[in-house]
């Protein structure tokens, strides 16, 4: 394992490997389920960028976007496996989508110094958000 890490020390290797099955990623990126409360806080934090484009059942904030579907009922529409892949790499479903691939660090142009080589969200953050979105049922 150690020799393998030295053999290909590319930045993308810092991301956890995942397996796509059908239209989703069935297994947690961290190996454990995410935290629903932390996920809700992350969706509402402007730095994760979700709320800039999406709206949802969040009466406490009026700063919601309407560039992307309302998140209400997301847990009915998608399985956790599907939600996970949509967060990790939405461009897999639509190459023209404006939704960023949140767990990707390669193939990007002119990434700012502070963000270079890093995914937008960590594996743990993805899992927290997936866990929260799965609770959004009509």
């Amino acid at each position, binding site marked *: 394992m150690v020799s393998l890490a030295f053999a290909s020390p590319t930045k993308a290797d810092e991301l956890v490997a995942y397996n796509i099955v059908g239209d989703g990623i069935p297994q947690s990126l961290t190996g454990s389920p995410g935290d629903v409360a932390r996920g809700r806080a992350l969706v509402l934090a*402007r730095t994760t*960028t979700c*709320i*800039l*484009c999406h709206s949802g059942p969040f009466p406490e904030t*009026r*700063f*919601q*976007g*309407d*560039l992307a579907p309302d998140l209400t009922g997301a847990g009915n529409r998608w399985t956790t496996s599907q939600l996970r892949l949509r967060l990790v790499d939405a461009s897999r479903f639509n190459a023209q989508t*404006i939704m*960023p*691939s949140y767990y990707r660090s390669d193939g*990007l*142009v*002119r*990434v*700012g*110094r*502070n*963000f270079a080589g*890093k995914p*937008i969200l960590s594996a743990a953050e993805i899992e927290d958000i997936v866990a929260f979105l799965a609770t959004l049922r009509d």
Partner: protein
Amino acid sequence: MTIWRAIAAAALFATAPALLAGEIPPDARRSGYSFMGPETRTMQDDDTSNPGMLFVLDGEQLWGKQSGSAEKACADCHGDARNSMKGVAARYPAFDKAVGRPVTLDQRINLCRANHQQAAPLPYESRDLLALSAFVAHQSRGVAITAGDDPQVKSFVDQGRDLFMQRKGQLNLACTNCHDDNFDRRLAGAPITQGQPTGYPLYRLEWQTLGSLERRLRSCMSGVRAQAYDYGSPELVALELYLMSRARGLAMETPAVRP
């Protein structure tokens, strides 16, 4: 009859600049003004409440003031700006023969300082450069934008268009994704505009000061978590030129007020 129609159609094709997919047709182009609330519009419309007018007044002072070792003022060569500068900003960025590429109004002012006043360049976003730029551009208030019409700048307009369409940064978004495809929608509750640069330099309430189009472009680039181009870089000038050509026909508003 049909021949005349064909000729008319051909003439129309030849004169109207070709639109690429996703671009906003002339009759649908809207200034950022139309996306603002009534209070901000009133602030812009009333010169006594428009904070940008303070910069315009400062610029008027500088216009008549000698600068550099040549001891010349702008007015010594250009006279009354109300006549000599009318409509000029609506044509910028414009091709400069000596440097062989388009230059912005800010760059033109600094070229004048270097070549005719023997004065040091004014730093980007400095109060004096913004004031002079605002004063000059204010003389074009109400004039329709025609920047980019000069055939000599065509390849630079094309470069700017390519940059506008190119996804960048960690968020992997292009200017066109918001400003061609999603204007009138809301990003975090705020309306997305078409990004028409009709009023620069303009007073942005968020900045609490006047700022250039380059400052605005750099701030959008930081927003998508991209490494912003440097002030005065060929990329920013090309983007500015493309944006002005994309706003063709809209009236100049300098100094505009924006949220």
